[in-house]
């Protein structure tokens, strides 16, 4: 993999830069690591969860639009008895990550010749569009963020509540703005209730890629 041809740009979708900083320091990454406190990328790229990824070629064209960055939905295969995910689900999740990573490597090396890079037609066909409510939610999120930064937490909370209602598919909005556990992770009762209410919907939409489990 030649570094001059390929760049990983990793972006923390974190309102609070200090919440994200320890993770970066722990990983001490060699790639570019940015922080997006206002969730601008959610608005620009119609992102609704993390990790999500976009492949952008040398000319700035999107060759794989926003999709899960190799994570698959195994949330509802959590087994309370073992206090973790079922082994079969874990294996499937690991296999998905490995498949995705191999595809990224293939594209990093082969560029447009990689079978994982979409042509324009396929790239458009895989692009998910947002509705007016989602676009509004992004504007309101920016407002909530500003109010929060100016010590107007009560007003910010009301605005964030509106954001969650306007864009219920956004886990970025939901998890950023709802209660965190002591660990800083938004995986409390509210989160699990929302997961369980997904029904047919997936927490991570499956990635259309050869070899994905």
């Amino acid at each position: 993999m030649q570094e001059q041809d390929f760049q990983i740009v990793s972006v923390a979708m974190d309102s609070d830069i200090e919440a994200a900083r320890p993770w970066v320091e722990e990983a001490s990454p060699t790639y570019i690591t940015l922080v997006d406190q206002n969730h601008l990328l959610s608005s620009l790229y119609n992102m609704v969860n993390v990790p999500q990824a976009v492949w952008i070629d040398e000319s700035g064209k999107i060759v794989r639009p926003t999709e899960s960055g190799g994570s698959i939905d195994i949330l509802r295969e959590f087994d309370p008895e073992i206090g973790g995910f079922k082994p079969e689900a874990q294996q499937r999740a690991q296999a998905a990550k490995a498949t995705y990573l191999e595809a990224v490597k293939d594209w990093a090396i082969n560029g447009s010749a990689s079978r994982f890079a979409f042509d324009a037609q396929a790239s458009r066909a895989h692009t998910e569009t947002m509705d007016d409510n989602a676009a509004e939610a992004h504007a309101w999120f920016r407002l909530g963020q500003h109010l929060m930064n100016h010590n107007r937490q009560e007003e910010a909370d009301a605005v964030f509540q509106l954001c969650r209602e306007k864009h219920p598919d956004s886990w970025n909005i939901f998890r950023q703005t709802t209660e965190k556990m002591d660990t800083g992770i938004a995986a409390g009762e509210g989160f699990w209730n929302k997961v369980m209410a997904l029904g047919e919907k997936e927490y991570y939409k499956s990635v259309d890629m050869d070899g994905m489990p």
Partner: protein
Amino acid sequence: MATVLTNTSQFECDESEGGLWMSAQEMASQLDWELKPEGFCQGDTCVPVPPDRIHEFIRDDQVNVSAFWQHLGRPVASSTSSDVAVLGESATERNDALLSLEAPDFTLPDFNGKLHSLTDFRRQRVLLITWASW
């Protein structure tokens, strides 16, 4: 006075009766929309002002950017006391941009506060990938 936020900028303008008022000259410099005889113009694109609603948009030498923004079909998010407003982007614009396949540019800081833009990485393939602490 109200603080107005866009994706890329922040500025102050006068607030009255739910409108956000500024001079046409300021509007041109802050939002890149110019007031011309044919309407509000950005480059070659002009949006006419409905003649029967002109007072909603223009008053003396002031322009109501909030009314204009909504006239474009774009969301305006405003605090209850109307002292902060966000001029957002519409779903149509976001979707059209994504379907053009031209990766939307952005400028964000790294953890040392240094700014980086997507366009800094032209001539490289970029894996843009998100994560979060939460």
